Every structure is written in C-alpha cells, then in structure tokens.
C-alpha cells in the first residue's frame, strides 16, 4: 500500500471515530457516585484550610478546587479574610468543591473502604506524587494525610486531624 493510500485510510478511520464519538455523547445522562459524607467532614475542612486554603493557593477563586475559610476565601460577601471565623456554609462549600474533583475515583476509593487512595487525584496532588505547584502539603503517612485518607475510607473519627502539627519549625539552636 502506498504511503498516500495509508494516510488516506488513517484519516478516514480518525474521522469515523470522531463522528462515532460525537454520536454517543449524551448530554443528559447522569452518573450517581457515593462519596464520603459531609457529616464527618468538619475536621478535614479545618486541615485543608491551613494546608491548602491560603489566598495564594486554593483560597483563590481562580482555582477549580476552592477551599473556603476564615484565613482565605470567604463564601459570604459580607465576610472578609481574617474575620469572622469559618462558617458552616463555608465548610459546605469546601465539601462540595472537594468531592467534585475526580468524583468517580473518589467514589471508587470510598466504596472500597479507602483501598489504593492514590487513585483519587487529590491524594496524588497532596502527596506530591503528581505534579503540584503547591508541592507536597500532606506527605504520605503524616497525620494530615491520614486525616484525609481516613475520611475517604469512610472513617468517622477525625481525631488524627488534630494531631497535625503545621507551623514554622526552626533549626536546632535557633528560635522563631
């Protein structure tokens, strides 16, 4: 077969695949995915606020994943960054934003009690195993990581979330 004929056949195949792809798209179809519940989310939200929700990261309205809270993005136009304290509405908004990221994989991890959590994009980003401008905010195995992975495994005890010790750590012999 000549090169020209080969290219023509390939172009026809690609065009056919594109047409078929368009025909099979159903804009009205929905998929229902079970995700971790809002009821156990509050300690996770507090963790995400400090590790991810600053104004220069996911506390920016320019981000797809938005973290709301007192020291970052406010959900209510009457509140300002810094005051008043994080509201239930903001925890709701953070929850909705978080579970909307890669929901199929989140649902799969949740359905299997947390098995292989790195299937969910957010865990890969937070552990730094996938390119993330914000680095590795929740290293694997640390309390913050266990807080988030525990929640997506269906855990109801947010106690590990409060073990997270996030703040400046001066070197030996130095003070801050």
């Amino acid at each position, binding site marked *: 077969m000549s090169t020209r004929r080969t290219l023509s056949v390939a172009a026809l195949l690609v065009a056919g695949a594109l047409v078929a792809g368009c025909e099979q798209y159903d804009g009205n179809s929905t998929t229902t995915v079970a995700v971790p519940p809002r009821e156990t989310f509050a300690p996770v939200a507090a963790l995400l606020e*400090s590790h991810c929700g*600053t*104004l*220069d*990261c996911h*506390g*920016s*309205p320019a981000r797809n994943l938005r973290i709301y809270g007192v*020291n*970052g*993005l*406010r*959900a*209510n*136009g009457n*509140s*300002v*960054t*810094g005051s008043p304290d994080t509201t239930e509405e903001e925890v709701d908004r953070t929850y909705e934003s978080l579970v909307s990221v890669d929901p199929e994989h989140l649902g799969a991890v949740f359905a299997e009690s947390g098995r292989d959590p790195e299937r969910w994009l957010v865990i890969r980003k937070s552990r730094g195993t996938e390119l993330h*401008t*914000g*680095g590795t*905010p929740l290293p694997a195995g640390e309390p913050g990581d266990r807080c988030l992975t525990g929640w997506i495994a269906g855990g109801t005890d947010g106690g590990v979330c409060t073990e997270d010790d996030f*703040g*400046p*750590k*001066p*070197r030996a012999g*130095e003070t*801050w």
Partner: protein
Amino acid sequence: MTRYGLLLGLLAAACSDPIRTRAMDELGGEAPGVPAGPLHRPGQPCLVCHGEDGPSESRFSFAGTIYARPSTAEPLAGARVRFIDSSGAQYAVSSNCAGTFYVGDTNFRPVWPVWMKVEFGDLTQEMVTPSFREGSCGACHQDPATPTSVGHLYVGDDRSTFPKGNCP
C-alpha cells in the same frame, strides 16, 4: 523580508504573558515625584514586575509594604520582617522610609511554604497562615479587606504610637 518581519512580530507577541501584561497595566503609572526605585509603588504587588519572569532587572523573592496601624495607611520605617521556610532557613530584612522591604532572589531562595512575621520594638504581628507561592505581600494584603483580601500589613493597633517617617 516582510514575511520574516511578520513572523518575528508574531513570535514576539506569542512570547508575551497576557496575564502579567494585564496585571502590570492595572498597577497604573508611577506616582508624581517618586522615581522608580526602592520608594516607589508602596502597597502594590511588587513581584508583578520584580518576580522571576518580570521585566525588572532587580528580582525579589519577597517584597511588600508595612504600615503602622490597621485603619490608616501610614507607612512604617524600620520594621523588621522575618521569614522562616519549611526547611527552617531564616532571613530578615527591614522596611525603608516608605514602609517597603524587599528580599533579593539570590539572598533568600525559600523552600515553600514560608511563614512570616513583622516586629517593631515590642510589637509583633505574625501571619496566621504561611505563603505557599506568593512573594508579593500586596497580592493578598490589598486594601480594603474583602472576601479575597486581608487588608494591608500592619504592626500596631490604632492606639499605637510610632516615630514620624522622614521620606524625602
């Protein structure tokens, strides 16, 4: 020749960063009587121009303006601005008579995130959250405070007294 000129023009246009260009445009012009230099544009997000890809020759890792009090825009000279990064490395710099400070990018290359605080005499204000990527204080600390801004940086409260500034 015309074709090459057109091609070069297109390449040059493609290389400009429209987001940065718009951010620079939004800064407006220089204030009358204040030449470009350490005293210019207090309170603005310095790294728009002085950042890694900015047009300025002087590059900063951090820069901003310190004010004396929360409810007035009186700059504070001589405030000590301290930084500690996530590796524990520390750096400090003082504000000039315009309240402005800047950290050269070769002097301090932080491992993000970075925590900061400002000291003046017995007064200290420490940031509640660290910065994860932003070196321009003015990017988040714009006036007035809004749902996406915390307002300007300050050290004291509205009753604090400070020495009078002496900027030219």
